[in-house]
């Protein structure tokens, strides 16, 4: 196996951000997805949505300028851009479920080759399960992209033939950004559209528990 330097989380977020065009309405999940916003230049107008009724979110406020009344779905303080607006939870999820978001980016425990996603519960949870808005977002957005490490910390593939963990939504994911590659979910399964420099087809396949197609 050839040694490769995987993309950092920041690089993954930047890679995904590169594919988000101006004018899209985008919801970013907690974790790596949130980092995507930092890589969209402010002059490229992308309108970020947060489940808790914020549309047109801006970046985190500078220290000293925090408004305690303005948080995102991750409970972090944010700002509002000119043109932004507030709404209540039923209206906010109307936007989500009604297919008005061009893109949702989520993390995941597993993605299956048919686009199934598992990202809310693992059999290892001994605390109570917590779903939040993940199922609404996964089922509702026009496109669902996943951004995650290619494998778990102990090297288990997260791209699989069939999810083992409880599902969040069926056949929802259309694209995955990992620390090793960018993949599309196609009718024929995972199709690799880009790999980290130094990565080989064989090495990527080894780290993946489903058959990969290469363009």
């Amino acid at each position, binding site marked *: 196996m050839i040694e490769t330097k995987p993309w950092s989380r920041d690089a993954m977020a930047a890679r995904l951000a590169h594919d988000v065009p101006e004018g899209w309405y985008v919801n970013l999940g907690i974790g790596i997805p949130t980092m995507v916003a930092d890589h969209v230049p402010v002059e490229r107008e992308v309108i970020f949505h947060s489940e808790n009724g914020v549309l*047109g979110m801006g970046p985190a406020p500078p220290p000293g300028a925090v408004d305690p009344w303005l948080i995102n779905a991750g409970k972090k303080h944010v700002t509002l851009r*000119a043109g932004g607006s507030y709404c209540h939870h039923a209206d906010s999820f109307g936007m989500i479920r009604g297919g*008005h978001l061009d893109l949702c980016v989520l993390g995941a425990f597993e993605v299956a080759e048919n686009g199934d996603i598992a990202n809310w519960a693992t059999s290892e949870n001994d605390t109570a399960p917590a779903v939040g808005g993940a199922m609404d977002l996964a089922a509702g957005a026009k496109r669902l992209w996943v951004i995650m490490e290619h494998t778990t910390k102990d090297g288990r593939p997260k791209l699989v033939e069939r999810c083992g963990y409880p599902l969040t939504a069926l056949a929802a994911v259309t694209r995955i950004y990992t620390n090793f590659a960018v993949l599309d979910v196609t009718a024929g399964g995972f199709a690799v559209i880009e790999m980290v420099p130094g990565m080989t087809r064989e090495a990527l396949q080894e780290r993946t528990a489903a058959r990969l197609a290469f363009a």
Partner: protein
Amino acid sequence: MIDKIVPDMNAAMAGVVSGSTILVGGFGSVGQPNALIEALIERDVRDLTIVANNSGGGVVGLAHLMQRGCVRRLICSFPRSSNSTVFEELYRAGKIELEIVPQGTMAERMRAAGAGVGAFYTPTSYGTKLAEGKETREIGGRMHVLEYALHGDVALVEAWRADRWGNLVFNKSGRNFNPVMAMAARTTIVQTQHVVELGALDPEAIVTPGIFVDRVLHVPYGDPVG
């Protein structure tokens, strides 16, 4: 830079084709997108399904559109008014189809379409002619009727103020069906009395956020008449 403001009517109506389902805002003469309706007539799109609360009066607006034979089917709560003669004549002559929907059910069906709800159970119309042939279900001791989401290909909306992101506010009872229809269509086209700078609308008071809006045309026509 996002700019949903379009320069002219041609740009506003691009891609609106015959056979479409068109949601038309307004209640009575208030909040009706008259300029956009007139543009439908000029473009001579035909075989339309129109969803609107009223059938139009006199020979302007929707009545004019119907008179020109452009409307195959009307989905409507109240097609009768003091001067809705165009519709009534077409209807009696069997030249237009009519689906009567209770006003609240009509609003809720479009809200469902906009909010990704496939269908819902409402107590409205249970046991009446308008529920004939529809599924029913007892919920919480009360009978309900199953109603499906009502999607539009196009929504024609009138707003009071709009910005380049497509954020909208309305004027008093000019709000009516406009925000609901804006949610429910694949393409939402707005005529607005006023265009304002981005950021000029109070974020706490934006009624229709731009996420529901595709194109905005500035049509400062003044007050509704009649």
